[in-house]
């Protein structure tokens, strides 16, 4: 389980240990690990180059398909993707630690990639510089087009570099991936908010637009008392912690509301930042919890308490400060909604009062509706642009979109890959070969 530990703690393997692990790879034909990778990384190929002592070739091969090679190696739920598909499981042996190996070879990779020149290069604006936007930009640059990146935030890589806890994905690892992309010379404009006017200006100045703004808004639930002091915004909380600042939970009792990965990250971060007690309240049972198993196990290991079938019905205050939550127990009912069983309040159980000092709701993310709704775009009921499944083109000509903005909550690698696919489609259309 050494690699599990490494993934959780963001540590690099030693080269000797990495070679030992790599030596276990059978180099399978039509490798199931590569097939299970949303980006289609050539896993046996990069492992073979690594074993041959060709580290630069190994890194180059990963980065060709996955421009955030270190980030994905460390942050992907590999047990559900490449490592989950490893043939060694059939022999009841642990998988090759592909994620850790990928991160290792990518960290050793030194070169950037020079873009190909294109005589009639187009100019493309990429709005949102997270994984989807970067994936799209990288592909377009590789084809020689000019790429202008815009993001509301100051940094590249979107939520990846803002809210993933540093112990899982240290800053230096993301920086390594981004440094490698710097030779592609994409022009980044940070702190750029987009509204209809700004969008129209960008559209006039560019041959095409890519929208990769993801799901930047938090799902809200109207809980009485939620404006009390001590109720924290989960993104701000995680951002503070990632930046190395105290997120303000030391010696406090912290309640986390939700069962996704963000909730689990918040719970672990609270615990690691000295919270006296951390309790996760989730309104369904563990079976329905969307958070990944590895993250749940890590939280449990650190002593985070989980209370299933628990909904907060109101926040108890004292002088404007959080004092407790009132918890209604739920029960599962047979109805399936979005693939999970639904719940209803269990009238036979009394409402419980749980004392606490900090409350962090983490109820999931949604697409921000405001500015998108102003554009003349066809949107789904949840506010995502509707795109052509082959070309990623929206209802506006030469405006494309992909990633979480289009497909909803997903993995970094999935958004990255969607951005890359959209980039390929944009290139084909821009040079007149497709569409």
């Amino acid at each position: 389980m050494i690699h599990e530990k490494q993934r959780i703690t963001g540590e690099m393997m030693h080269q000797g240990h990495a070679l030992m692990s790599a030596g276990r790879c059978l180099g399978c034909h039509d490798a199931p690990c590569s097939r299970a990778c949303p980006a289609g990384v050539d896993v046996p190929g990069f492992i073979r180059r690594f074993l041959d002592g060709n580290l630069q070739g190994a890194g180059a091969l990963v980065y060709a398909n996955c421009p955030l090679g270190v980030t994905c190696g460390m942050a992907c739920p590999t047990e559900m993707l490449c490592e989950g598909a490893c043939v060694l499981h059939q022999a009841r042996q642990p998988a090759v630690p592909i994620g850790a190996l990928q991160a290792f070879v990518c960290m050793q990779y030194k070169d950037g990639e020079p873009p190909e020149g294109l005589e009639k290069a187009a100019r493309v604006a990429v709005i949102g510089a997270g994984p989807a936007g970067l994936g799209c930009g990288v592909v377009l640059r590789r084809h020689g087009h000019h790429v202008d990146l815009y993001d509301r935030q100051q940094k590249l890589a979107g939520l990846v570099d803002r809210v993933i806890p540093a112990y899982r994905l240290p800053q230096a690892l993301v920086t390594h991936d981004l440094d490698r992309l710097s030779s592609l010379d994409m022009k980044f404009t940070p702190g750029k908010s987009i509204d209809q006017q700004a969008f129209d200006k960008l559209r006039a100045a560019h041959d095409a637009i890519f929208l990769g703004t993801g799901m930047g808004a938090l799902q809200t639930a109207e809980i009485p008392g939620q404006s009390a002091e001590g109720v924290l915004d989960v993104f701000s909380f995680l951002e503070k912690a990632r930046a190395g600042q105290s997120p303000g939970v030391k010696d406090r009792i912290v309640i986390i509301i939700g069962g996704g990965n963000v909730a689990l990250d918040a719970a672990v971060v609270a615990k690691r930042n000295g919270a006296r007690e951390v309790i996760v309240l989730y309104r369904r049972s563990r079976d329905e919890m969307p958070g990944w198993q590895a993250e749940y196990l890590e939280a449990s290991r650190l002593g985070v308490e989980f209370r299933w079938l628990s909904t907060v019905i109101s926040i108890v205050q004292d002088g404007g400060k959080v004092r407790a939550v009132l918890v209604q127990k739920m029960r599962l009912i047979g109805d399936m909604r979005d693939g999970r069983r639904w719940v209803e309040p269990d009238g036979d159980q009394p409402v419980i009062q749980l004392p606490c000092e900090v409350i962090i709701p983490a109820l999931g993310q949604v697409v921000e509706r405001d500015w998108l709704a102003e554009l003349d775009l066809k949107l789904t009921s949840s506010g995502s642009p509707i795109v052509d499944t082959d070309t990623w083109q929206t209802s506006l000509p030469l405006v494309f979109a992909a990633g979480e903005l289009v497909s909803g909550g997903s993995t970094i690698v999935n958004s990255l890959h969607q951005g890359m696919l959209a980039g390929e489609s944009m290139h084909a259309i821009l040079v007149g070969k497709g569409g």
Partner: protein
Amino acid sequence: MAATNLQVSFCGIRLLNPFLLASSPVTDHQDMVARGLDAGWAGAVLKTTTHPDEENSIAYPMMAGLEPGSHLVGLHNTDLLSDHYIDEMCTQAIWLKDRFPECCIALSVMGTTRAQWEELVQKASQAGADLIEASISCPQGSMVEGDGTSYGSMISQDARLTEKVTRWAKEAAGKTPLVVKLSPGVTDIVEIAQAVKAGGGDGICAIDSIEGIVGLDPRSYAPLPVVGGFGTRGGYTGKAVKPVGLRCIADIAAATDLPLSGVGGIYNWQDALEYLLLGATSLQVCTAVMQQGFGIISALTDGLSRWLEEHEYPDPMAIRGLGLKQLVVHEALPHEIRVVALIDDEVCIGCGLCHVACRDGAHQAIVFADRLAKVDREACVGCGLCQQVCPVPGCIQMVNA
């Protein structure tokens, strides 16, 4: 990105890279070869063919491995010549050359009489083969009638025969370059290489497989692979034969100026580099492809071109033979150098294997306590055995004492 030019010139033939598919089962049919060339191999020596007068009956099974599986040490075979006789192989060569004009298409032939050698080589030459390889080194049943040799011995084990057959073949080949393939199973391979030169050969390919017995079946006592209760000597190839191949290439390179095609245990680009540094210009691969497929070519060319680029060599020709001057006789080694083993505690996994090896195979210089190995620098002579048995690459270094 790996952009170094990998082109080489071998016996006057331009190769896109040094890597050729060796005469073997991997080149026994045009469709297989076409897939290999599509994957990026620079050419192929088609499987050795002969005259239709010769009986060519293979007994099956014909393969047995030393430590079979993904860590196969060596592969033993009792294969013979191609099922396709010379005319059919010439047709395949023409078809391949038409489809792959940039690639080197070579024919490998083996005869038993002068008339056969002449006919085989002429046909190969007329078919437009880029190269002709004379196979006088296959451990399974080559012979020359009426020349005092018994069935089963190899022409290339006799310098006089080697020169004679080389001359027959070269005269029949006309302008087509003739490469002669040699066996490592000789007292002095330099003597044989010089016989190739004297006979007019244009190049040498070394090494062919090593004659051996890979193992016995403990129930029937028959050599592996067992065929109806019996077995036979076979040709041994793969990773395990690389040291023999490198030594032969180095010896030949030091003694002749003929272009050399290195073959024997090439699995990765570093193996390839070693053959080039010891004097080879082109390289041939069979067993690694039989085990892992034609696709390994991308890892071979990628690794080699990156290394060349990193070391600022323009192409593989630039490194030919650069390792020969570091190869000296034992007396010429600097005996005053003193090294000791250094174990990296951070990396050591506490297996104790170095301790056991040193205790029972060397100088009792590694203490093992609390699952930690420590080197006694006074007792360590610096033999390097521990470094060879440690399962963690890079954990043990030999450092100046």
